[in-house]
């Protein structure tokens, strides 16, 4: 079964073709990141304008690289949400028009399901499993007892981890996107600034306290005209941020009898997190997506689409719509 995936929830226009939920035949990603850098973050209206410019080219390129024609495609899987609504609607309406013109069934897929299924590309999921989802909009622990069975054990009560990274990077004067910038500069620092212990019940997360602590600390030092060691501040923050998701992951891993641990989402590209996860869970079954499948891409959507369809056998109508907020 050939699935064509479409992803446009934020600032990447992407189309991918995959076979039988396993083999990626092509994954074309048109990134707008350089365009948004000038604004210090993603500008939704600019993102929408870029998506519509690039969309048909990306479809064409993805089919060409996979050496396929539209008539080879058995299913279209498009990101339905959550994300920037204007951006989502470009991908969704392009996908619907493509599916309609070529008489192909279509389904809407949850963006986070896509991130989770980026893991299925390199290795097969073994159930039950625990997945830590970390991105700009999400920090959650998901228990999966089977394909497309998502049980949320806990989530962030305030900021997502990636959001905290971006805001700390901004106050430190580091470029957008903040995650990779902090990860990189941390190499040159010491964890010399004390950070608060994060307290939150259950398998939930909280990042606003840590974020505010760093922002206040930086502002106070600036007011007192004291020097700030940016690399060390970044490293101190990053260690506390990663320790928090690790603590909760270990707790959940011990509380549930799971066979596999996975990470997913943009922050899964963070090197410190990857090292910690390897160290802690490396003895058992562990899945960490390849770097290129951590950030937003359509390959993960087409793999997730395959399993969603296998499991639910349900297709959407031409009234399929996008949602900025959507439950997994």
């Amino acid at each position, binding site marked *: 079964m050939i699935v064509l995936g479409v992803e446009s929830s934020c600032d990447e226009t992407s189309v991918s073709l995959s076979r039988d939920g396993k083999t990626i035949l092509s994954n074309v990603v048109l990134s707008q990141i350089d365009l948004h850098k*000038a*604004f210090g973050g993603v*500008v939704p*209206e*600019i993102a*929408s*304008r870029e998506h*519509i*410019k690039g*969309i*048909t*080219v990306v*479809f*064409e390129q993805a089919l060409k690289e996979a050496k396929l024609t*539209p008539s080879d495609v058995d299913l279209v899987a498009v990101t339905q949400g959550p994300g920037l*609504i*204007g951006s989502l*609607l*470009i991908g*969704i*309406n*392009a996908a*619907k*028009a*493509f599916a*309609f*013109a*070529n*008489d192909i069934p279509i389904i809407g897929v949850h963006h986070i399901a896509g991130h989770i299924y980026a893991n299925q590309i390199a290795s097969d999921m073994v159930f039950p499993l625990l997945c830590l989802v970390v991105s700009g909009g999400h920090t959650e622990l998901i228990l999966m007892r089977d394909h497309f069975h998502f049980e949320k054990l806990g989530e962030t009560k305030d900021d997502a981890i990636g959001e905290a990274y971006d805001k700390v990077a901004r106050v430190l004067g580091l470029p957008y996107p903040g995650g990779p910038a902090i990860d990189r500069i941390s190499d040159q620092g010491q964890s010399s600034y004390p950070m608060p212990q994060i307290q939150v019940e259950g398998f939930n997360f909280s990042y606003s306290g840590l974020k505010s602590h760093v922002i206040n600390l930086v502002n106070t030092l600036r007011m007192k005209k004291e020097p700030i060691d940016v690399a060390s501040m970044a490293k101190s923050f990053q260690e506390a941020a990663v320790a928090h998701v690790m603590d909760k992951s270990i707790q959940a891993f011990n509380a549930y009898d799971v066979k596999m641990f996975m990470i997913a989402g943009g922050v899964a590209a963070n090197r410190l997190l990857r090292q910690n996860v390897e160290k802690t869970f490396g003895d058992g079954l562990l899945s960490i997506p390849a770097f290129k499948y951590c950030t937003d891409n359509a390959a993960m959507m087409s793999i997730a689409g395959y399993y969603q369809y296998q499991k639910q056998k349900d297709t959407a*109508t*031409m*009234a*399929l*719509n*996008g949602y900025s907020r959507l439950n997994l």
Partner: protein
Amino acid sequence: MLQSLKTLVIDTSTPYLFLALYDQRELVDSHYQKGHNDHSVTLMDTLQEMLSSQGWKPAFLDEIIVGIGPGSYTGLRIGVVVAKMLAWSLSCRLYTVSSLALLASSVLEDGQVLAWMDARRDHAFLEMYEKTRHTLIPVDQPRYSDFKAYQNSVKNPFVLVSSGHPNMNVIWASDLAVLVTDVHQVEPFYLRDTEAERQLKDRVNNS
């Protein structure tokens, strides 16, 4: 003489969803209905219904004409992305037409017509046309202007139009549909930079 010329017209630049099917330049079916910010839900669904009730497959379409703007950004893009994707998928001709010209084409009387769309903060996207019996001639550029100030600046009498079922025969007679040479390049005619771009330009100019 052409044996068949099947045309699909799409415009989503205003709160109204406009879809029309023409065969040999004769109107076969159309849909002109006010939506609730839901062009994304209704456009493809309505199109599918209209085509199937004619017994037309998507591949029967010879050409697509799309209202390219200006207009409400998110809504406008729905029609343009669908037109672009259909034209690319079906390898059929794609034409763009000013969404303001589509509005002006709905007016029956002759004389000056001011087609306009609300652009908030007392401003409008607007364009003045001269309507004669079967044609429409632009007499000004499309503008983003203070709506009252623009109207006060016009000496001759005119009719205002901000909604109405477009008349494609007027558009064709006036040669206002523009053939697209590269479908990949098509993007809406926004008439304005984004707010973020304007602020960035201001900052650069002021420093």
